[in-house]
């Protein structure tokens, strides 16, 4: 199913972002560190505890998930956009690699970057606070499935985008609002009833609370449904990305 060429492309994707670590790893670490300092230390004392967890620790899973989502999406969408923009995507399209292999290689590259960023933010949190992980296996499962889902989403947007603005617009108008309304900084119980209902339709809300449960042992949502939603999104986006690549949507004439 997967040829040797596929593994070479995966390696290429990993090398690309690791060489650019100042752009691909450091920013997530710095912004998460600032969130912890500003929101956790400055505001945390005033807010107190949520579900018997300090506010600072409560927001960490959300910050981890924001970093994971953002970096996984950025990796595949920008890598693909660069390949389209500089036209070296043609060098891949003429090879024996199938659409599934090419899309999967981009997704795996994105998943690794999301995962690395997530782990780095967790390690930083452990360094700056008394944050610890309740269930390491479940935490890893969430980090991987959510990275995978948004890596695949990045491939879809990367294929669809005609300009760099399209990539940025998705971050600004979709991810940012969904992240902020997804319970990164608060529990759903702190919101008015209307927004509680709205949040139920936000997939990020389920993903963030899933990771919150895996790390802290508390959450607003059903653990099983959170995991199922994360896996379903990963599968659905992967299927869409692979079909788009295989059919050459917007990348072949």
């Amino acid at each position: 199913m997967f040829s040797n060429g596929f593994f070479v492309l995966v390696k290429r994707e990993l090398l690309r972002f690791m060489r650019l670590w100042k752009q691909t790893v450091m920013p997530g670490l710095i912004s998460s560190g600032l969130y912890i300092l500003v929101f956790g230390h400055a505001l945390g004392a005033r807010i107190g505890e949520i579900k018997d967890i300090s506010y600072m620790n409560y927001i960490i899973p959300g910050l981890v998930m924001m970093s994971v989502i953002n970096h996984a999406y950025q990796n595949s969408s920008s890598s693909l956009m660069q390949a389209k923009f500089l036209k070296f995507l043609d060098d891949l399209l003429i090879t024996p690699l199938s659409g599934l292999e090419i899309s999967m290689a981009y997704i795996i590259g994105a998943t690794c970057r999301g995962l690395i960023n997530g782990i780095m933010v967790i390690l930083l949190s452990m360094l700056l606070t008394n944050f610890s992980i309740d269930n390491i296996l479940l935490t890893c499962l969430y980090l991987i499935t959510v990275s995978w889902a948004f890596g695949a989403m990045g491939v879809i947007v990367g294929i669809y985008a005609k300009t760099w603005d399209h990539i940025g617009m998705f971050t600004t108008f979709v991810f940012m609002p969904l992240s902020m309304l997804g319970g990164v900084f608060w529990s759903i119980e702190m919101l008015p009833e209307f927004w509680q209902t709205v949040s139920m339709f936000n997939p990020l809300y389920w993903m963030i609370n899933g990771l919150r449960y895996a790390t802290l042992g508390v959450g607003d949502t059903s653990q099983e449904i959170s995991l199922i939603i994360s896996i379903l999104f990963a599968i659905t986006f992967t299927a869409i990305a692979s079909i788009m690549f295989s059919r050459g949507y917007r990348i072949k004439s």
Partner: protein
Amino acid sequence: MFESAIKIEKLTKIYDGGFKALNAIDLVIPKGSFFGLLGPNGAGKTTTIGILTGLVNLTSGTATAMGKNVVREFREARLLMGLSPQELNFDVFFTIRQVLILQAGYYGLNKKRATERTDLILQQFGLTEKAHNTARELSGGMKRRVQIAKALVHDPPIIILDEPTAGVDIELRHMLWNYLRELNREGKTILLTTHYIEEAEALCDKVAIIDQGKIVTEGSPQELISKLGTGSIEIKLHDIPSELNIEPWEFSRIDNVIHIPTSNPEKDMPKIINILTKLNLGIEEVKICKSSLEDVFLELTGRSILEDTMESKNV
């Protein structure tokens, strides 16, 4: 064994918007040949190549490489072909050596073999010293060499070159010509698209002329020139009698020069000189104007092959 390296049957491509770039073309490119696909910009050359290599989705018809269908058996077919596109493109995150090793890897070569092939190709193209530079740090000519090197790195039996010498200097053009001749002698099938007539005449043993999505003629350059060319002989005479007759040839005259159109000037010249000598006409100067594939194209389409090079977009 397949006699044809590439076989195209009733290949049609209609782009979104309804533009018919290819209109049911048939084409057979023999194994081991140096085949030229000639035509002006927009004729359908790049579309044909795009379909063969997987960059363009065909509308109808079939295309095979060494008997492998380029759609249904795309993995096998693409392994057999290497493409150098007209437009330069590079993975700017890696050095050219790394780019070539990766490219070979995408075709399934293991790391050892990919590295060996890369170093050999870099040496053959005089790029060894630049191996650790990125494409951005190279001159235009060097970039073109790397572009062609990418098509060769997995050692395919069919090499497809889309306008490989567009914009390169004469020295590099001749270096590339020699290299391509050598590859062809080694048994590689080469499909070349160009609108440089002299390039096709110098390299190709067979050409097809494509215009507005249709193959208008094909054959060896000499066959086409003999059949459709319009060469001529110009003879300057000391004096021209008012009722000069050199039948079966017709001629026109300007001052003391007679202009005789002929499809085969070399063959006809001795006979014409013989007639003029018998008439005791003093011959001062003889000039042969040989026909070219450009004349063939003009004869078939009524247009110059270079007419719209500057304004038309390649499709």
